[in-house]
């Protein structure tokens, strides 16, 4: 992409247009002059307790006061009871690893990180959690015991992670 951009800059001067030739096919391309940066602003107004909990090292979920359904990711509404009468509960800290993968080819927005392991674990109260797995992915297999910990990311913010339980 950078090659194309440079070629287009040169071609604006020499040829009169932001164009470049695709190396593989030899086909002429217009190199877009308009850049777009996307950054979403996402409301967490109704789940702010979740973030308060995380700061204290706790993983919180919502639980419907009527039917007892536990929601993780936390939901404001219980669609079964058509109600929004929810309690915030702390999830069990320990569980079992369901599955994992190591992301080698990373999105550009995660370029600051080395290859990372993403795992899914089922906590003792039955709730499943997707998060990064701390430690060597080669040393853990589905079925083994894990726990949830909260730590600060390289980017500075708090996030929960799945951590193998020794022994």
């Amino acid at each position: 992409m950078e090659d194309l951009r440079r070629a287009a800059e040169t071609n604006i001067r020499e040829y009169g247009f932001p164009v470049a030739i695709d190396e593989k096919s030899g086909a002429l391309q217009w190199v877009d002059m308009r850049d777009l940066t996307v950054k979403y602003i996402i409301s967490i107004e109704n789940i702010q307790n979740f973030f308060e909990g995380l700061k204290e090292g706790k993983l919180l979920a919502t639980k419907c006061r009527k039917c007892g359904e536990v929601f993780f990711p936390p939901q404001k509404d219980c669609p079964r009871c058509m109600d929004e009468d929810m309690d915030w509960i702390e999830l069990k800290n320990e569980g079992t690893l369901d599955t994992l993968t190591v992301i080698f080819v990373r999105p550009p927005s995660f370029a600051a990180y080395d290859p990372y392991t993403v795992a899914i674990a089922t906590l003792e109260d039955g709730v499943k959690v997707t998060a990064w797995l701390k430690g060597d992915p080669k040393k853990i297999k589905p079925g083994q015991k894990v726990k949830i910990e909260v730590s600060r990311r390289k980017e500075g913010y708090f996030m929960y992670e799945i951590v193998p339980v020794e022994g």
Partner: protein
Amino acid sequence: MSVAIIGVGHSRFGARKDVNVPELAWEAIKPAMQSANVEQKDIDFMVVGTAGLWSSEAAVPPLLYEYGMFEDVGSMRVEAACATGNAAIRVGYTAIESGEADAVLVVGLEKMQESPNPTVIELIGRFGSYFWEFENFGLTFPGYYALHATAYMAKYGATEEDFAKVAVKNHHYGAKNPKAQFQREISLEQAINSPYVAWPFKLFDCSPITDGSAAVILASEEKVKEWGIEEKIWILSQGVGTGTANLSRRESFTSLKSASYAAEVAYRKAGIDIDAPYRQIDGADVHDCFTAAEIIAYEDLRFAKRGEGVELIREEQTYIGGRIPVNVDGGLKAKGHPIGATGVSQAVEAFKQLLNKAENGRQIDVKNGRYLAHNVGGTGHYTYVTIYGLEKR
């Protein structure tokens, strides 16, 4: 009202730097209209399946309306992630079934290479649950499916080598498909020695980033009679399933619930025995966005019992001559996976296979006159199972 496919078109898949969006679409629309022997005025609805984001044009139906000089025609853009193509067929199919339309042009289209690969990797990663999977944990598309592959390996003892065998098969047939992105065979060693993308998936476990288009003309039974159409296949049934946004809200990672549900609905509607559907179907295109996904599809579609899908590939039962030939067009793996075009490309393949028009070395034996297409969007978010037949239901 029965619905038939009366014409098909398919562009060459690959890196199509030689054409822009409407030119690429026209490569499929033109042969579809010509093979159906219809003109612009005969089309009363136009559905365009395209996921977009990576390509410049957003108002794609109007763009194709303009480029193709259509007139007085309704149109709609459809998106269902990687199942966009079959979702577009769904719209056309139901429009005719309900009597709202008589002849529908369905176009599946994607020009992914208008953006550089890293941008596409970034955008596809966001097809999961944005906040709880992507924003904080950087899942990529290979990653979502790798989570399923790991679970399948742990539960049933499949290996990375087993997965590679799917790639070898699909490249074997891709090599015989002149429209495929990769028209070359690969060896098991090549596949196994390729670099990791998302463990346990390596480069050769993954479908590529592709430009391509496919188009079909759907017509009502009435129009088929009126126009005296001889070359046609019928849509016998379609099952559509939905899955949770988050993988963590699912019970199992060795099956896609949306797919097993969609299959059951499609089989029941088409009168196919759900215990051994492969006895009544001659071949299938399944959604092999990743190798392990094809094996899981064998089980969700009941071509094999749970845990035995891997045996099908080990025993080469999904090659031509086996229990049921699967992805003999190269699949997403070798044919390529232009998101919105894939589901429509599967319909084109059903048409070619059932009418004995496939190229040398990749024509299946047509005995029952039925072909199945399994198209999954997102991480199992949407599944469309469509059954096509030579005889109407």
